[in-house]
């Protein structure tokens, strides 16, 4: 048996080594870089500067805007995707005819790349075209907006496109969650004289809580990492006054355009820490629960 286990471990080894180097080694390397002065293509004397890059970062107006944008994005994108996803899943779960047809349409954006989505929404949210034209034609002129070209809207416009693309994900999660609820529970509720609303409130909703938690974690970590969609809609400059800018884009530009490598590394470490706060407890909880089962 032990010999078998050793062979099994050896099979795992190549992947373990790759992940150890490419994930953990590289993270360590990035962390180390973020503590140095390598902020140009050519630095005559590389030395450690402590937390200087982080201090500069948090004092930087652009990074402050980025953090605020990330928060605003999450506050629109996560509830938006949850509500739309739950709504769609409840509709699909009523047992309507053509369920498969509608489901295929609702989840379709999930198969597209952010760049494709970005091309479509960039033109839909062009101030002189797209949605604004539609609103005019429908007599809804008050809904018109400068979208991503208006500094007061910026990231909110990006969040709208993100909801379009990813609400299908929460819909799929909720649909699976709803299907897993035993019919008997509803029958029992009906026997007890519960209204449909009460059945939803006291049966469906609590049983969907773990699904909601999963969705919040996954959507939350997408909010922190969002990059492609911003580039495709607002462009590499992050929109006027950085109104659509996000930390991932700031990192990209800082590192690969301005050559401030240590500063870019500091941004990515901040991102990593934020993601870790979200993901580590969740992973731990998921795996523990699995073991308990």
């Amino acid at each position, binding site marked *: 048996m032990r010999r078998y286990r050793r062979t099994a471990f050896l099979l795992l080894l190549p992947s373990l080594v790759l992940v150890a180097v490419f994930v953990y080694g590289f993270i360590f390397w990035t962390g180390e870089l973020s503590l140095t002065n390598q902020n140009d293509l*050519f630095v005559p004397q590389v030395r450690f500067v402590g937390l200087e890059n982080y201090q500069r970062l948090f004092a930087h107006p652009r990074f402050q805007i980025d953090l605020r944008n990330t928060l605003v994005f999450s506050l629109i994108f996560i509830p938006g995707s949850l509500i739309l996803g739950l709504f769609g899943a409840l509709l699909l779960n009523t047992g309507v005819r053509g369920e498969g047809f509608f489901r295929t349409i609702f989840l379709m954006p999930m198969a597209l790349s952010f760049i494709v989505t970005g091309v479509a929404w960039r033109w839909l949210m062009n101030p002189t075209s797209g949605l604004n034209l539609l609103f005019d034609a429908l007599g809804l002129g008050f809904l018109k907006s*400068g979208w991503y*070209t208006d500094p007061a809207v910026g990231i909110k416009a990006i969040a709208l496109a993100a909801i379009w693309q990813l609400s299908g994900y929460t819909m799929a999660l909720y649909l699976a969650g709803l299907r897993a609820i035993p019919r008997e529970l509803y029958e029992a509720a009906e026997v007890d004289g519960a209204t449909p609303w009460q059945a939803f409130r006291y049966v469906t909703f609590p049983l969907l809580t773990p699904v909601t938690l999963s969705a919040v974690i996954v959507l939350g970590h997408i909010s922190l990492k969002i990059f492609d969609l911003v580039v495709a809609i607002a*462009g590499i400059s992050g929109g006027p006054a*950085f109104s659509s800018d996000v930390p991932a884009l700031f990192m990209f530009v800082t590192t*690969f*355009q301005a050559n*401030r490598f240590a500063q870019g590394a500091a941004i990515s470490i901040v991102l990593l820490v934020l993601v870790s706060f979200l993901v580590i407890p969740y992973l731990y909880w998921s795996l523990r629960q699995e073991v308990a089962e």
Partner: protein
Amino acid sequence: MKKRAKAWGIGALLGLLIAGLGLAQGGKLEIFSWWTTGGEAAGLFKLFELYKQKHPGVEIINAAVAGGAGSNAKAVLKTRMLGGDPPDSFQVHMGHELIDTWVVTGFMEPLDEIFQKNGWEEVFPKGVLELLKWNGHYWSVPANIHRANVLWYNQAIFEKYGLTPPKTFDDFFAAAEKLKAAGVIPLALGDNGIWASTHLFETVLIGTLGPEGYKGLWTGATDWKGPGVRQALETFARMLDYVNPDHAARSWDQANDLIIQGKAAMYIHGDWANADFMAKKFEGYGWAPAPGNYGVYDALSDTFGLPKKAPHRQEAIWWLELVGSKEGQEAFNPLKGSICARTDCDPKLFNPYLQWAMERWKTDTIVPSLAHGAAAKESWLAAINDTMSLFVTSRNVDQAQAMLAQACVDAGVCK
């Protein structure tokens, strides 16, 4: 007769064979640029044509990268150079964009021999030779000169409201107020690429500090925390009150469209706007130096250099010799809409604006453009662009001045 025809046939066959061999031996030339559209692309193709006449059998690979006013191309170039895979020659702005990014870091070959062999020290003006030099050597060949500080205006609008091109900022604001009251957009701006705002700000800096004060910004001689920069920021903020509200959604050429359509009266921009007017068949425009910029030539230049690891070195040298030659410059520049970096080009080949610019080129004080890579290295320019991106919306003078001062410190120029 028959025999001769046969001999001809063989000769032709041999010719083909030789040409084929030339190709097979890797007679190639890869030229990297961001000239993909309009007059720029036409000028580039003209140079390729001339090159092929002189060196038939060399296959030219056009590695142009579109988009982002060159920012995409620069990113591509950086990764290629760092990855040890440079093109044979590449477009790069004269000044710090070339020097700090590629020369100081040891990626380029000095071109002193080529300069001497072709007698270029006699034909390029001193001001340009100085900007090309670093550490006593020449590092790139200028193909052209653009002027950044030009005020373009719609003649019909100026006539209608009895205006003349404003010489000072006071004149400018007086005219702008008049236009605004009449419902005309006084100043066009298209800064969806933030460099357009930086570009406008640079002309305000020149107009406020004067050429020497402006040049001092890049050497540490002029204080970024001083009253001059502050005043420039305040003037710039005031100007922004007169621009089209949708400036953030427009590109520089879409801002130019406002002049063409008669919706805006003035546009402070580089002279590629002139080429755009001509391409769009619009003739009702006039030009003058930007307000406060009389007697100053805010210059930028596209140059070509020779990377150390260029795979086809000889072909690249031929290319550089063509780019710097009278023939090359006279072919390229009328199409590109710029003037020759050489002083011996024939003015008759150029349109009226360019003839005007050629005259100024001889007499004006030359200063390097900030927004187009001549004045400051890339990371410094990036920090200034960041500042502008915030300032255009916030108009927060204190914050902007503090950021500009910090950027100078980060660049290692200020203490």
